[in-house]
């Protein structure tokens, strides 16, 4: 019955994803330390592209893949289709990301970047097959699965366009310039993959963690249609006409969708039975402030872009930073320590419960490391955003240092959790 037994391979595949994602987070922090100057320039440059792909693939998507292998059975109430497929996916994914990021960093848009693109695309296809087959064998349909499947479709399209762009560097077959496609590629990834998936997963898990019985799923349905319609319109209009006045309407439609979702989360929070909210949940909920902040910057980017003002480029980098480093990273930093302790706990204590007194999953968390990581990340966000707004190199340096501390404490915490030793107490001694 359990999804993660003592010898269950699901533990290995999930923990491997978490560990590798933690390593990529460390690499990302290191890259930021050595490329602060690049942040002041245009976002379409080697180091920014390398960092963005480390964040989006190595950090964000890697941990989402691992977490989904663990959570799909809970969300969809069915078993994961195949562990072997999950291993096959990561076998392509890791070398693909490493090679891709390296090729961006030194900007070698040749054969190695193409190989990297093919590896990443293959990994994504294998991951998607696993999700589709898991959903296929599910008995009841739910709005959550619609979000997850749609997110996977967008991920495939994002990766496909990315792959085409990689080949286009050498063969130049795309009709329009790279910046044009980069915009579409980025928004398919952000709104299609990350936003759709995070909505689908969080809409199921946040009420569970908060113990809320709020069940107005139609808000999620409105969010689903608005966001997807906005994204499709953006892609179609963006491809044909580029950014124009009409894009404000598309933005408004997307924002309406996000508002429906945020209202759903707010109502879940408001109607929760459990009043105390732990630090990982506080971080997860706080992350949505950065999503909102990122979205609110978009009309300003449009405004300056339409005026051909270079400030639009700076705002675009800030927008990307708020989305990847504010919203997605904060959510991951929070949710890692809501989900990982469970699989570690099950591995150590599943057969011991009731015989002897065992700790609870939340007792496995190292509070010191959690607070260190939270404080360092808060400092990073404050220093990074203000450093960006005031163009201060000192503040950006503080931000890069803080991110390095965050990544180190996060990775150390992962190691502490995965090396946990079984600790029990006899009931007679209590």
């Amino acid at each position: 019955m359990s999804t993660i037994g003592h010898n269950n391979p699901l533990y290995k595949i999930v923990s491997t994803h978490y560990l590798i994602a933690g390593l990529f987070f460390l690499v990302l922090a290191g890259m930021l330390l050595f490329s602060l100057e690049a942040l002041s320039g245009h976002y379409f440059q080697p180091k920014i592209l390398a960092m963005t792909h480390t964040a989006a693939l190595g950090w964000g998507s890697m941990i989402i893949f691992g977490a989904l292998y663990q959570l799909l059975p809970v969300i969809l109430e069915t078993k994961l289709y195949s562990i072997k497929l999950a291993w096959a996916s990561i076998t392509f994914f890791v070398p693909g990301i490493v090679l891709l990021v390296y090729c961006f960093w030194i900007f070698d848009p040749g054969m190695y970047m193409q190989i990297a693109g093919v590896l990443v695309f293959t990994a994504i296809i294998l991951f998607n097959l696993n999700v589709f087959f898991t959903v296929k064998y599910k008995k009841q349909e739910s709005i959550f699965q619609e979000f997850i499947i749609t997110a996977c479709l967008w991920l495939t399209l994002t990766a496909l366009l990315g792959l085409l762009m990689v080949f286009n560097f050498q063969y130049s077959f795309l009709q329009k310039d790279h910046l044009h496609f980069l915009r579409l590629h980025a928004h398919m990834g952000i709104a299609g993959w990350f936003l759709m998936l995070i909505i689908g997963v969080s809409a199921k898990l946040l009420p569970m963690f908060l113990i809320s019985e709020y069940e107005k799923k139609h808000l999620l349905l409105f969010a689903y249609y608005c966001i997807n319609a906005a994204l499709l319109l953006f892609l179609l209009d963006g491809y044909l006409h580029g950014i124009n006045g009409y894009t404000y309407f598309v933005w408004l439609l997307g924002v309406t969708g996000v508002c429906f979702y945020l209202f759903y989360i707010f109502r879940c929070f408001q109607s929760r039975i459990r009043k105390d909210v732990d630090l990982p949940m506080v971080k997860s909920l706080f992350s949505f402030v950065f999503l909102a902040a990122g979205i609110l910057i978009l009309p300003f980017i449009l405004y300056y872009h339409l005026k051909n003002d270079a400030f639009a480029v700076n705002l675009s980098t800030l927008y990307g930073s708020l989305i990847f480093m504010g919203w997605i990273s904060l959510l991951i930093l929070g949710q890692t320590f809501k989900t990982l302790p469970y699989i570690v706990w099950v591995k150590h204590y599943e057969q011991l419960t009731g015989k002897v007194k065992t700790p609870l999953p939340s007792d496995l968390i190292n509070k010191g490391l959690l607070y260190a990581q939270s404080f360092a990340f808060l400092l990073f966000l404050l220093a990074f955003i203000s450093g960006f707004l005031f163009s201060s190199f000192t503040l950006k340096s503080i931000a890069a240092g803080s991110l390095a501390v965050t990544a180190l404490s996060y990775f150390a915490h992962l190691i502490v959790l995965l090396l946990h030793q079984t600790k029990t107490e006899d009931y007679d001694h209590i």
Partner: protein
Amino acid sequence: MITFDIPEFLFAMKVTVVDALKTVIDPELHVNIVDLGMVYHVKVDDINKCILIEMTLSSRNCPMSESILSAVKNSIIRTFPDYQAEVSLVWEPAWNYRTIPEAGLRKLRGL
């Protein structure tokens, strides 16, 4: 509300069984399964020396299901070494937040 099927002369066992079950804590909610209203029925079969627990879980694919069920079994065997323990999982009536007894709600609210 738990219903009991216990022979009159073993009536004292009722409190002890409930106390044993109260040592089983839901790993996410941090409240014991009795106060969460997950235990529906307790039957003591003195002839076959068996205690049957009929209970439910928060969801059918609860990732903690195996650990909770083995905890229930182990807690009964630890408290009544002469008895066997059987746990029967039922899904009707379905558990939801509205069925949580007042004691469980108080604990969840941190009161």
